[in-house]
Structure formats: C-alpha cells, structure tokens
C-alpha cells in the first residue's frame, strides 16, 4: 500500500531574536508544534525528535494538541509520534496491541476509554518518514499524520464527560449506518432502544 508521505510545514518565527533589547533573558531555541492525524489534532502521545547529530529530544502532546521542546536539535530533524497506553500493558508481554480482543472471552481489553490509537508506523523517527526543519530561535511546525484505509479512526479530544450513567439522557449518535443511510439515535424517541456495542471478531 502506498501512503502519501506526510506533508510537513515548518514556519520559522522570530528570526530577529538577535539584538533584542537588553534585560531580556538570553534567547533560547524553542520548537513549538502541532500534530494532526487525519486533520484532527492529536491530544495524547509523545513526540520524539532525532537530529542529524543523533541528538534526541522528547515532548509530550498536551490536551490542546500542541507540544513544546526547548533546545531542540536544529536543522533537518526526524520526528516520531506515538501514543503509548498508560500503565504497563506493554510491559506485560502478553499483547503488543492495545484494544485487541481476547477471542475466547470476547471481551475487550481494558484499554483507557479515551485512548487515541495512532498508526505504529509513525512511532520511530528513523522510519516514520516525518521530517521538519528547525531554525534557531523560535520555530513552529505542523506535523501531518495520514490515515490509511485500515488505520484506527481519528477523533478529537472528548470535551464532555466520559461515560454514560443510568438516568442520563443518551448522547446523540448520528451518522450513516453500514448501508449508508443516515441514522439518528434522537429520532428513536417513543421507542425502547437497545444499543448493542458489538463486532463479528
């Protein structure tokens, strides 16, 4: 499968930091960035920067979808983006993939409910195909992760309360059904509705 290499935009800001008025702290190199997956801001995960001099810097993606690195490697920098599940699921050695099923019990693994899964091909800066150009001073970059046909869905950071309790009004579910017909949960008022989360597996 051919995937389009990511489009990378690096915009250098603040080229004129030299010659600032006296009294300000000495200018340092700062890289600020945003990661988009399928054009949705990535609000969880970790960005790894690898410079041509093999210097490595790591930054966490913030809930607002940005990351910030002080003293980043400069010049052409390779980037990896990954979202590792919290806790030590991966350390258990049982399964490398979060969200996988135990077929014997047909039970979903206990992945965090709001876990944004990213394609693993973007994790390693050495083969992610993602690069940016980092200027001295302040730089801003936008890193685009493309979503392929079989990749997990992108979704924005949930802003509402997670979890639906007995007594709550059901949040709207709206969109095409598997046959492409629009289906809205709110249009079922007047009926008793059983919502079944299921799969063929």
């Amino acid at each position, binding site marked *: 499968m051919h995937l389009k290499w990511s489009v990378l935009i690096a915009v250098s800001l603040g080229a004129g930091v030299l010659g600032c008025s006296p009294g300000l702290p000495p200018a340092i190199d700062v890289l600020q960035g945003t990661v988009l997956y399928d054009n949705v801001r990535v609000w969880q995960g970790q960005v790894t920067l690898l410079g041509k001099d093999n210097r490595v810097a790591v930054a966490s993606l913030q809930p607002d979808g940005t990351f910030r690195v002080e003293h980043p490697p400069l010049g052409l920098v390779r980037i990896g983006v990954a979202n590792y599940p919290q806790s030590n699921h991966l350390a258990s050695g049982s399964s490398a993939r979060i969200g996988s099923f135990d077929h014997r019990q047909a039970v979903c693994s206990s992945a965090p409910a709001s876990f944004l899964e990213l394609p693993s091909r973007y994790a390693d800066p050495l083969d992610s195909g993602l690069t940016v150009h980092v200027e001295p001073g302040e730089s801003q970059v936008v890193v685009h992760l493309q979503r392929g046909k079989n990749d997990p869905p992108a979704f924005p950071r949930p802003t509402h309360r997670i979890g639906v309790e*007995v007594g709550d009004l059901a949040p709207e579910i709206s969109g095409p059904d598997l046959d492409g017909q629009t289906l809205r949960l709110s249009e*079922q008022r007047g009926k008793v509705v059983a*919502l079944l989360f299921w799969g063929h597996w």
Partner: protein
Amino acid sequence: MADQPFVLLGINTDPDPDSVRQRNRQREINWRSWWDGGVNGPVATTWKVLGLPYVVLLDQQGVVRSHQTNPMELRRLIRQLLAAPASSEATKSPNSLDKKE
C-alpha cells in the same frame, strides 16, 4: 416483538466495514448499525464501553435505564419498559424501574 415500539441498534466495533457488511449478509444480521471504526472508536469512547458485547437500554424518552448484558434480565427490563412507558417522573428517578409496584 416486531409489532412493539422497540428497536435494536448496533454500534459495530470491527476494523473493516466491508467485511462487516459481507458477514452481516452471511449471518443474516438484520439490525442497523453505525460503524465506529474499531474498538476505541468515538461512540464507544463517549459511552465508556470497556467490555464487549455491551448493551445499553434506553427508555421512550431517550434516558439510559440499564447497562445490562444478562440476556434474561435484559428481556425482563425491555418487557417492563414496553408495558409501562416511562413517565416524566420515572425519568427523574430511574431507580424506580427496579421497584415492584
């Protein structure tokens, strides 16, 4: 229950929608489903679904009345809701569902 005001709607968590459609035909699955893109999709995330399969029962006003996976209990709750459509009062105190009059 075909003549009753009841509907079963699915949120499918399989990774590939084409394969779901194919297997729905093979297995004669007759309920409508949204496709959630995988096990950590947006709907399952919003509803905080941690285990599958998972059933949420809504009353006629769209209020969540039960998270229930026991088929017999589910059947009982559905019949109860159909027999006594939830009043606005019941909506405010959902626990009344479990009280026998």
